[in-house]
């Protein structure tokens, strides 16, 4: 009988584990702790046999828990096991951390089915056309944004394999590099919050999900940045792997109006202003004003942001103590940090922004950039009030402050706003310079690209930032943010599906047909998403039920103590322990999936951390980064198989694996970087919560 190579690998691994048990178990004097270790080894073998993990854990947990109780009191054993099991299960059912899992999963499916990824990729492709390796860069950025919003690795890799992979092959990109970019990019979603992985870790390790989200944000960005840097450097260094795009692929088609107006000059802003004064006969004033408004949205956004920051930074002290905590601590740090603390303000304001897409559906008028435009309006209206200098400010501030602080003495002090801090002026200067450069380069082509980004990139980015911002800044619990995010995702789906149906109605037919067909499609989107959510959450949460009884049995048998004693007897330094732990997780990532690794093995590692003075939060960030490799490491590299499923037949699995290797190396580098500079992950949670 011919046995496949993969089978050999699996069988030899299994044999190795069993052999280790047989050799190292002190068979003559087994303590119950040894039974615990035996159980642990058996579970690895059991999982590898391919039976649904949740039930393997359940069966083994029940059996070994019974063994543990029996050694104490055989009469009561059965009863005790049953009580323990049902209480543990009920604990999972009423877990207030895991409740966020189905909600985030639901949000992901809804966003995925809003079908905006092709728009997103096209817009980013044009936006990055001049960067070396532009298609790979666009792929990674698209993946990072889309995967973050959806968190579904399989769907993202498949979609990018259908969209970006062909585009890259057509442009003459190397097969391996293209495959690597798609697969590595698609996996970013499980690291960059809001991700389900971090919730599962938080629930297992008892670490605050809020802090995990705050902590994983920068490492996630860093990993994406490293991917991008690698791709760009590679494209510069060996252009034959990623040839620059031909002119026709970089070309941005201009609409008629823009073509007409661009005859007057290349600069869009100047052209629009002159057109407002004297529009050409065949161009309506309304279109020109619309275009002008779109062009000015960055300005409005910046003004709104600065106004918001100014408001937060200068509200009277009573307010600052409660609401603006992050900002006041920021003002004592050095200027660079201050600028960035300030820049994190947007989420606070974008908390309300998940709502506006609703407006766009309520008033579905013609424009391409309609939804974001509506968004900008309420904000743009707000800042002039807050940022009008001196006189009006004092009067406007007074009633607010008084109503909030009825106490007479405080009210006397309150109306006076704090002096504007220096960092705000610096931010203002920087934004003015940046806006200046942006508007200097504002050609017609760029206006078109910006419009495309406005309809694809920004709504998604806003949704993510709103969800993340409201969690990190403590405006909402992860559960609430997830629910509102799911709601926002649904609104996003409504908006995109409706616009598409509206446009696809042939000319001359009544537009009302679009409403019926989009409601029908939305119904099926909602149905599919709910069913898939039910399946995914059942999968994750039943795994938790299994592991609840399993880890209880492990603790009852005293396996934990034995492991602890053994690890302490090795007399390792914290660094050695950390490297060992990460190495074990890395190795486990080859045969197992991330859910199993976290749910089964984290309960063993976590109790060891205090002995080495390691922050479980920091450990979690390292684990999350480390588990990225689990997706890319053969033989269970899910990402590779999803890509293979939609790749042209001559692309082999080996090519895909080879393409993933450099990205896996980057993941390891990122892991080392995070370990050497823990500040990358810990700075934000420490600034915000300590």
């Amino acid at each position, binding site marked *: 009988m011919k046995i496949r190579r993969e089978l050999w690998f699996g069988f030899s691994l299994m044999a190795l584990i069993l052999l280790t048990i047989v050799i190292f178990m002190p068979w003559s004097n087994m303590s119950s702790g040894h039974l615990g270790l035996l159980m642990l080894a058996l579970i690895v073998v*059991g999982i*590898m046999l391919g*039976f649904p993990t949740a039930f393997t854990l359940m069966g083994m947990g029940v059996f070994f828990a019974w063994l543990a109780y029996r050694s104490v009191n055989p009469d009561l054993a059965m009863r005790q096991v049953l009580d323990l099991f049902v209480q543990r*299960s009920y604990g999972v059912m009423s877990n207030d951390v895991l*409740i966020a899992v189905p909600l985030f999963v639901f949000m992901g499916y809804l966003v995925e089915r809003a079908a905006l990824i*092709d728009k997103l990729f096209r817009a980013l492709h044009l936006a990055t056309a001049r960067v070396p390796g532009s298609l790979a860069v666009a792929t990674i950025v698209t993946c990072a944004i889309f995967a973050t919003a959806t968190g579904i690795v399989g769907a993202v890799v498949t979609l990018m394999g259908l969209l970006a992979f062909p585009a890259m092959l057509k442009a003459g990109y190397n097969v391996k590099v293209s495959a690597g970019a798609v697969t590595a990019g698609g996996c970013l979603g499980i690291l960059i919050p809001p991700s389900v992985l971090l919730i599962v870790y938080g629930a297992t390790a008892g670490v605050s999900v809020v802090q995990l989200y705050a902590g994983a944000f920068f490492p996630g960005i860093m990993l994406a940045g490293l991917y991008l840097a690698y791709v760009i450097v590679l494209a510069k260094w060996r252009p034959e792997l990623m040839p620059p795009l031909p002119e026709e692929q970089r070309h941005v088609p201009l609409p008629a109006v823009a073509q007409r107006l661009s005859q007057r000059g290349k600069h869009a802003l100047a052209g629009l202003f002159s057109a407002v004064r004297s529009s050409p006969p065949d161009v309506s004033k309304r279109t020109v004003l619309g275009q002008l408004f779109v062009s000015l949205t960055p300005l409005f956004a910046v003004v709104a942001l600065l106004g918001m920051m100014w408001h937060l930074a200068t509200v009277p002290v009573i307010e600052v103590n409660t609401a603006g905590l992050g900002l006041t601590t920021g003002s004592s740090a050095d200027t660079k940090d201050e600028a960035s603390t300030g820049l994190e303000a947007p989420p606070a304001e974008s908390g309300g922004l998940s709502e506006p897409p609703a407006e766009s559906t309520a008033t579905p008028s013609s424009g391409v950039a309609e939804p974001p435009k509506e968004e900008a309006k309420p904000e743009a209206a707000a800042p002039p009030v807050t940022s009008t200098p001196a006189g009006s400010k004092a009067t406007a501030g007074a009633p607010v402050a008084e109503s909030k602080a009825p106490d007479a003495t405080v009210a006397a002090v309150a109306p006076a706003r704090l002096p504007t801090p220096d960092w705000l002026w610096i931010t203002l200067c920087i934004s003015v310079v940046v806006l200046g450069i942006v508007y200097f380069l504002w050609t017609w082509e760029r206006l078109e690209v910006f419009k495309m980004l406005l309809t694809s990139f920004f709504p998604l980015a806003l949704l993510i930032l709103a969800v993340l911002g409201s969690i990190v800044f403590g405006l909402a619990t992860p559960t609430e943010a997830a629910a509102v995010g799911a709601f926002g995702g649904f609104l996003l789906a409504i908006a995109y599906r409706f616009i598409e149906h509206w446009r696809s109605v042939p000319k001359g037919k009544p537009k009302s047909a679009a409403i019926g067909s989009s409601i029908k499609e939305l119904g099926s989107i909602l149905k599919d998403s709910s069913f898939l959510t039910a399946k995914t959450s*059942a999968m994750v949460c*039943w795994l938790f039920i299994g592991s609840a009884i399993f880890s209880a049995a492990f603790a009852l048998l005293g396996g934990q103590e034995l492991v602890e004693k053994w690890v302490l007897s090795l007399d390792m330094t914290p660094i050695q322990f950390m490297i060992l732990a990460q190495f074990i997780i890395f190795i486990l990532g080859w045969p197992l*999936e991330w859910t199993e690794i976290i749910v089964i093995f984290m309960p063993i590692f976590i109790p060891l951390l205090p002995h080495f003075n390691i922050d479980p939060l920091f450990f979690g960030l390292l684990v999350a980064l480390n588990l990225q490799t689990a997706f890319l490491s053969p033989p269970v590299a899910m990402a590779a198989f999803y890509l293979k499923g939609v790749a*042209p037949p001559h692309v082999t699995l080996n090519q895909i694996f080879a393409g993933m290797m450099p990205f896996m190396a980057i993941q390891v580098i990122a892991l080392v970087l995070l370990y050497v500079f823990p500040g990358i992950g810990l700075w934000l949670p420490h600034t915000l919560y300590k």
Partner: protein
Amino acid sequence: MQKLLLTIDKISTFIGHTFSWFIVALTLLISWEVFSRYALDNPHAWAFDVMIMFYGTLFMMAGAYTLSVNGHVRGDVLYGFFRPRTQAILDLTLYILFFIPGVVALVWAGYYYAADSWRINEHSNITAEGPPIYPFKTIIPMAGGILLIQGIVEIIRCIICIKEGEWPSRTADVQEVDVDKLKEMVHVKDEDIQQLDKFVIQQEHGK
């Protein structure tokens, strides 16, 4: 026989589908609660309990459904490479060894747990006037029972597979990664992918 199996599949799926609408309810409930708290300044004390109950009911009742569509995560190192008959033998052994004792224990324990809760008319103690919690605890034996029935169906499937050498069919259900649907979504056709092959071949020859 096959008909009976598919019928039970359908029942599990129907229950799963019905309860999966809880996610929509949960989303709306929490969104409303957030709105009500921040905008209307009117938080509800029962909201937290109800959220937890929705979530718990959702995933517990979807357990059998997930099993019926083979959706529980498996360690797929070796399993995928086995022939169907080997898969079935392994599954059958492990269903009897792990699944049946585990789930029977859950149903058994859950029954007494829920019965106790009914007897003392238990109410949630998270807030002062908490809602009754016994219906929620009843979910445990119910979900376990359906799961057990579905498990027996899976065992029969294994036996059929051992006899016939291939897996009996299942009813189709929504897939997480439904390649055809995704292709349609981004307007890619199979021919397009076929045509791409020439670029790959070209590259191979170029080297």
